[in-house]
């Protein structure tokens, strides 16, 4: 129980840190859309640099280079801090995208628990990704959310590793 509380506390700390990041980025968005992502990256998020380099070399290559899967904890729909850099990169791409681009955010869960609850959980995950992108200035109109619950696993099997890979949102351009 104590351990659990500790974990929850730790988790909350992450979330708070994460949200703090979101808020500041959001504020900057209002001032200057283009520079916001740059400055957000400078604020202690280290993993985004490589992605950004590739983004700048060519818009076409960016499609292939950018990872499109965001992972989640069990029975969780809250974004994990390590997803932030990737989502910022997607946000930038989508902000700059031409008008007719549409993106489907497909939420998935692992096989554990009941199916319709997982259907709802998958939607929550996709909503979390959508809300983040919208907060970063992406138009809500180009983002479509759909949940597949546990019906479309990325990986078969009943191991911790398979479950971790199946708790995801796939960003589909």
């Amino acid at each position: 129980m104590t351990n659990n509380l500790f974990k929850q506390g730790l988790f909350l700390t992450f979330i708070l840190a994460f949200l703090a990041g979101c808020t500041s980025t959001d504020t900057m968005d209002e001032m200057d859309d283009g520079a916001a992502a740059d400055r957000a990256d400078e604020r202690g998020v280290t993993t985004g640099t490589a992605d950004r380099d590739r983004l700048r070399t060519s818009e076409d290559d960016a499609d292939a280079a950018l990872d499109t899967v965001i992972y989640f904890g069990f029975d969780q729909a809250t974004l994990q801090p390590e997803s932030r850099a990737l989502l910022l990169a997607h946000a930038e791409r989508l902000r700059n995208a031409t008008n007719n681009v549409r993106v489907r955010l497909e939420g998935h869960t692992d096989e554990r628990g009941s199916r319709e609850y997982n259907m709802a959980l998958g939607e929550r995950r996709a909503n979390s990704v959508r809300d983040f992108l919208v907060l970063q200035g992406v138009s809500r109109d180009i983002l479509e959310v759909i949940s597949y619950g546990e019906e479309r696993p990325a990986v078969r099997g009943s191991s911790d590793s398979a479950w971790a890979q199946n708790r995801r949102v796939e960003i589909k351009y």
Partner: protein
Amino acid sequence: MKHVFILSALLIMSATALAQLTIEITQGVDDPTKIAVVPIERADGVSMPEDISAIITANLERSGLFEAIPRGNMLAFPRSETEVHFRDWRVLGSEYVLVGEVTEDAGIYRVAYELFDVLGERRIMRRQVVEGSEGQLRTIAHNISDRVYETLTGIRGAFDTQIIYVEVERHDDGTDTFRLMRADADGARPVLLLESSEPILSPVWSPDGRQVAYVSFETTRPAVFVQNLATGEREQVTDFLGLNGSPAWSPDGRHLAVVLSKDGNPEIYTLELATKRMTRVTNHFAIDTEPSWTHDGKGIIFTSNRGGRPQVYRVDLASKRVERLTFQGNYNARGRLTPDGESMVMVHHRDGTFNIAVQELDTGTLRLLTETHLDESPSVAPNGAMLIYSTRYRGRGVLAVVSLDAGTRYYLPSERGEVREPAWSPFFD
């Protein structure tokens, strides 16, 4: 509309082409009642297309309450009262004897049967006759099983009922085939109701057993459909942005509870089928899903994570008052009331495993019915004696049945693909 094709929404009677579910009994009660089911055959000696006695024997044994005397041990094959010598059955330890015979005329089979109490040396069910075509011989056997079971246990038999379930075949190229199937309660005579390359889930029976509702992704988005079993005719009843799921019929069959997230959040609504009028039932920022009606039609039990983790709640439809029903463990979901309304079966998470549990509503007492892993989708037989659920067995999704006292269990493994989400039919009368 990518890769979507509905091969058939009609009833296809091609049992041979479809994978049968085959039964594997893993556990029974300690002291089952011994019964002899004498071969029930044609008086003129012509062989039967179905072995009626074998079907009855399998039904009774699967209930866990009976043990059948092997045919090879029987000293005689009586067909009617005058041919029954109780001593022959007493020496075999048989407590009851079922005898009968078949006559056939122009394709119509008449099956006559009667049941005897060996120790009391008396007939306890007088000669009954049931008629049907060759294709109905299995139904006749199930019907006889029901009568025998009820006579000996006092509980109405549920052998002459059916199940629907989802079968999934994963192909090497990464695509899937989803099939909505219907079969006898023993898994025999599977019939295809719907096939799609996109997910099918959450099938449920209408209270009269004539229709099913389910969720299909065939439009690339989830939508609730209602399908008539006799005609194959079907109707898409929801088409909203976001979740369209978890259909549940009201006891009077006039409403369908569904889960929609059109207002930004998974909430429970009731849909009046005749008018398509939608009424919102829950209103909370948490997940509310998996509705199931109380027997009086005045309330709905549902899963919600409004307390942080999924638990089962009940909402009164008139007052919208919500009450939490489950308190043990950090994950209880998909509650369904038993036919007597006194208990609820659900998915319960404990020590890293997901099992089926039953909770008495009055006392809150919770009992685990299963002890495997990843057990889900419990559906109680209409007589309340057994429930069917899905689990994993040797790495595959299979259906399993357990008695509500947890004393008896058996698997119905499929020969093909994964099977899951079973729903036990109501009585068909």
